[in-house]
């Protein structure tokens, strides 16, 4: 009986093999060159696979097109603003303003967000309030946002069609399909997924190729200590090198809200005052901080958590000392925490030639 089953199973294996190998003879029409995402070792070791939509595989031509679009003011009403105007490489793809100014001179109501490791946002909720699902969908919004590029996709598609280079680039990336919003946002999504940052001092420390100063080490301990910083429940930990949970919390910034954040998207008052936890990578380049850019420095951020907490009905219970205003860190712990936070910044991300036009 045993032998019978083994033979049967062996048969399955062989069948399975011969079935599969026949696929190798199928001709694939010439098209864009597939490009695999360059997954850093530390992500490969620690994290699940990044999100790449089945209908938008990475290709060399798609990425190149996305990069050109990202840096091209052609997307904006008056040709004055590119994605990169508010997402600048030297600032880890955010800007230095509290609120960004759109082409009409209007101020938005939120601080621009740095862009990196976006394919590892496993829930795919984008923006501070999570209102956009998926990177391609997100990329369709700035063009028509009246406080940003204030354009229409119809105009953009028109311009791209009449451009000396774009028609060829779209064809190389997507074949003969006509230029559309759909294809432009796919290209942008492909480029954005390549913006990967995983080469900070701390990354190298984790991989065993760099060491932390005693101050940075104590800062990590403050970060991980429930009695002190207790930052890790929301902002990742050495085993989660994203340094965010990509989830939504009220971290006790305000007692009443001028911006409801997630609450306005879900319509649930229990979500008022909740915003997406930002990654703590690259803080050295991304000031000011928080959804409204209220803090100009990391010291202000740390002081907030230490003694500035504001109570409200939706405050996250992880802000456990909210009734005392915060965790009351010592000056030494504050300085060490800051040193640790800065060890998460990755200078090589700023001048990676693949990310700069």
């Amino acid at each position: 009986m045993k032998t019978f089953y083994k033979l049967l199973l062996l048969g399955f294996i062989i069948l399975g093999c011969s079935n599969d190998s026949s696929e190798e003879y199928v001709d694939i029409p010439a098209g864009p060159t597939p490009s695999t995402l360059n997954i850093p070792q530390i992500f490969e070791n620690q994290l699940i696979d990044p999100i790449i939509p089945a209908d938008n595989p990475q290709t060399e031509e798609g990425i190149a097109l996305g990069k050109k679009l990202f840096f091209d003011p052609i997307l904006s009403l008056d040709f004055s603003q590119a994605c990169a105007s508010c997402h600048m490489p030297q600032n880890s793809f955010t800007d230095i303003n509290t609120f960004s100014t759109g082409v009409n001179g209007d101020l938005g109501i939120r601080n621009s967000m740095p862009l990196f490791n976006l394919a590892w946002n496993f829930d795919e909720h984008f923006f501070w309030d999570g209102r956009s699902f998926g990177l391609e969908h997100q990329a369709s919004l700035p063009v028509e946002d009246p406080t940003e590029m204030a354009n229409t996709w119809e105009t953009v598609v028109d311009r791209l069609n009449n451009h000396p280079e774009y028609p060829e680039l779209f064809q190389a990336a997507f074949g003969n399909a006509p230029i559309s919003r759909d294809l432009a946002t796919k290209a942008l999504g492909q480029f954005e997924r390549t913006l990967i940052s995983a080469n900070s001092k701390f990354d190298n420390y984790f991989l065993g190729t760099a060491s932390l100063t005693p101050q940075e080490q104590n800062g990590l301990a403050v970060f991980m200590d429930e009695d002190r910083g207790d930052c890790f429940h929301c902002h990742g930990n050495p085993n989660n090198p994203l340094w965010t949970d990509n989830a939504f919390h009220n971290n006790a910034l305000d007692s009443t809200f001028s911006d409801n954040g997630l609450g306005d998207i879900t319509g649930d008052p229990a979500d008022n005052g909740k915003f997406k936890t930002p990654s703590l990578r690259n803080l050295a380049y991304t000031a000011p901080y928080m959804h409204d850019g209220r803090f100009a420095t990391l010291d202000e951020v740390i002081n907030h958590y230490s003694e500035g907490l504001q109570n409200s009905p939706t405050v996250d219970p992880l802000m456990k000392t909210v009734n005392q205003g915060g965790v009351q860190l010592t000056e030494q712990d504050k300085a060490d925490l800051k040193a640790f936070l800065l060890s998460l910044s990755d200078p090589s991300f700023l001048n990676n030639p693949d990310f700069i036009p």
Partner: protein
Amino acid sequence: MKRLLSFCLCLLLISCFEDKDDNLDLSNLATPTFRFTQNWDGTDVSIDDLITTQFTNAHGETLNISNLKYLISKIVFENADGDIFILNGYQLVDLSDPSTSLFSPEGSLPEGLYTLKFVYGFNEMDNIDGAYPELNSASWNWPQMLGGGYHFLQMDGMFNVDTTIATPYNYHHGTAKLSDTEFEQNFVNFEFTNSIFISHNTEIEIQFNLAELFKNPNLWDLNQYSSSLMPNYDAQKMMQQNAATAFSIGQVTN
């Protein structure tokens, strides 16, 4: 990929045959499904109760729940002959994500009568720091300075919500730290005596009575133990003791 998968599957089956005696009817393999449910002393607790529902614990504090996640691993079935079937995999149940309440472990076993064991949390063999990408990605890690590995339970919310000073609590359970260099395993091994008939479509309900966490054997006073419980050895050991009566087998459907 498909090829690899069927190959592994075959190896798996072949190795099963080698290990087990020939009397088992291996032509009728089944993989049971688990349904994890929560209750508060018999009243169902579901996603709809998050934040909005108030519960009163045995000590008399009124509380709400804004986050509840827990980890179940190492599911083992044993038949009357003492044959043991270990189903690999683990499940992180998240009250805010109903899809996580259903779990099909890896592997299968012949139809028949079994008793069930599982581990609440990870046992020391499995509680390896950083070893599970899925759990790392969910930030489920337990700090290395507390012994590392993973959380077993996170329950967060506010207590004294019926007073003017509602206060946060963070009931987080994992490895217990005795000193800077000594750590104590803190999981619970559940061994149920009920016999369960496992057939092709068996679904086993595992009930988690949250109220037990606050009363048995240790009457839990949130005013004393509300937060920073992770580094608190006494709190961690009390959590382990209280969890030991919190799980039971509910409905088994075939």
